[in-house]
């Protein structure tokens, strides 16, 4: 089985970390832009800014190890003559641009005394908008890279880029919520603390919405391949359906643990108690862990199973 895995754990981890970076930036930028000049928005946005940069750098460090000739990678960036049809050409540029944006964005939070109303506020917001745009491109690229390959019927689905993107945003929200749960200390000012509590519920609500969207996308992905796809696609998707080699881990880990458990917990402890009590500590830890593990397993299953399955007949 492993004979076919030209793209293995390194690729999966790189794509996962890239997605986590894109998602963390998305959450950070949305909090910053929606929160106007609120201090609690700014504080939580800072977690996202740091997580985005760390994740994208970690993923970027892994990438050269996946290439057989990493010192020739510069050729990708200069290949304007022939690279315009290659998803990887765009992906390489998106990664560098988004990496640079996330670096400068994180830098604006690092300054001593940085606040929502400091003299960098305007530049920070410009970077937030740019990072949202390039993060969207990079988040979609990870799926497009696979979905563009007709020779891999399990990947060749228009739903896949959206699944990877939504999973990236979910992971980002989960990562920020996790950091918030670990590092946030109760504020002495009751009014400020009340707003911090709302931020926790806000993150949980975003995870709930994104997980709901992801559940629909998984359903559409399976439906399109199984019912409406080509013979090759419907043959390939059997590997994820009951009886298939990857069925148990896909449905149990990626769908139940990664999507359904967060939906149930977020609906139970997030939305319904939004104004009453803080998100319980264990929920703010368990939900992110479920999302992060589920997101990794989802990518693992699809990328590995996509290389095991192949066109049928000759």
């Amino acid at each position, binding site marked *: 089985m492993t*004979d*076919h895995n*030209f*793209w293995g754990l390194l690729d999966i981890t790189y794509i996962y970390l890239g997605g986590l970076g894109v998602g963390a930036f998305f959450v950070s930028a949305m909090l910053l832009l929606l929160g106007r000049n609120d201090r609690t928005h700014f504080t939580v946005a800072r977690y996202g800014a740091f997580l985005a940069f760390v994740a994208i750098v970690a993923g970027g460090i892994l990438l050269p190890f*996946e*290439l*057989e*000739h*990493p010192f*020739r*990678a510069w*050729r*990708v960036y200069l*290949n304007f*003559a*022939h*690279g315009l*049809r*290659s*998803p*990887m*050409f765009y992906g*390489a540029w998106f990664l560098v641009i988004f990496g640079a944006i996330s670096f400068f964005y994180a830098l604006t939070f690092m300054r001593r005394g940085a606040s929502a109303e400091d003299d960098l506020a305007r530049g920070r917001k410009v970077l937030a908008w740019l990072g949202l745009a390039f993060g969207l491109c990079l988040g979609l690229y990870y799926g497009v*890279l696979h979905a*563009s*390959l*007709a*020779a*891999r019927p399990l990947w060749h689905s228009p739903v896949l880029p959206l699944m990877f993107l939504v999973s990236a945003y979910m992971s980002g929200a989960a990562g920020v919520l996790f950091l918030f749960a670990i590092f946030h200390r109760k504020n002495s000012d009751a009014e400020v603390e009340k707003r911090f509590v709302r931020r926790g519920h806000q993150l949980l609500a975003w995870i709930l919405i994104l997980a709901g969207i992801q559940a629909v996308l998984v359903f559409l992905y399976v439906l399109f391949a199984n019912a409406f796809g*080509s013979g090759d696609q419907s*043959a390939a998707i059997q590997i994820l359906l009951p009886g298939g080699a990857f069925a148990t881990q896909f449905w149990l880990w990626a769908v139940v643990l990664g999507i359904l458990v967060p939906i149930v917990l977020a609906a139970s402890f997030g939305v319904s108690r939004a104004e009453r009590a803080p998100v319980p500590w264990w929920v703010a830890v368990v939900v992110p862990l479920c999302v992060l593990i589920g997101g990794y397993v989802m990518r693992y299953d699809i990328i590995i199973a996509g*290389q095991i399955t*192949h*066109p*049928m*007949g*000759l």
Partner: protein
Amino acid sequence: MKDSNSKPDISRRAFLGGGAAVTGAGAAAALGGGVANSAVEGGAKKHYVMVIDARRCYGVQACTVACKAEYKVPLGENRSWVEEIEKGNYPNVTRSFLPRLCNHCDEPPCVPVCPTGATFKRDEDGIVVIDKDVCIGCKSCIQACPYDQRFLNEDTHTADKCDFCIHRVSQGLQPACVEACPSRARIFGDLNDPDSEVSRLIATNKVSVLRPGYGTEPNVYYIGADHTGENDHYAEFSYVDVKTNRRFAERR
């Protein structure tokens, strides 16, 4: 001056100014002493194709061995191989063979995905090649080929596959597999030449290509090929066994 015995430079730059390698091929063929390939004589644009008459193939694997020897292909990999198909229920049984190699498609899916332009289709003869000095080993092209013809060469750490023996063809010789085949099941030539054997065979026989539904427009044509797949026993309710003779046990 370029040594006529040296391997041709397969960089894009060499192609742009590289007509000389082709025009000198006729003379090189005489020196080479092999079967001259009339298709490469003259400066006209070529359209190299291979016709495989599967009725003539009896699975001796001479082509597989010749290819391995020609390129020192790493252990466990093949640029070309012969698959065996056994099917039917006694007494209606058949055993046939299907030689496989890169199809040098007119619409090769491996080319656009390459982020560096290392893999490309040559304008002058349609051969899909890999520039090993440019390939970064990202494996995109390996994933993009619907025939799984590409592999990662563990010696060069680049993508690898059949190149129609470009170093032989450019000197007027036949590809190694064609020359080694004892039953003349493989015929190589220029489809743009209406008098070539491949043109005649394609015009006078019912030919097929592999996985035409992928729109790749392959340039390897089969006569009398058995396209039965390993899963077709479900449909035919009869015994089907496909032996790939390749690292991958299942047919890809």
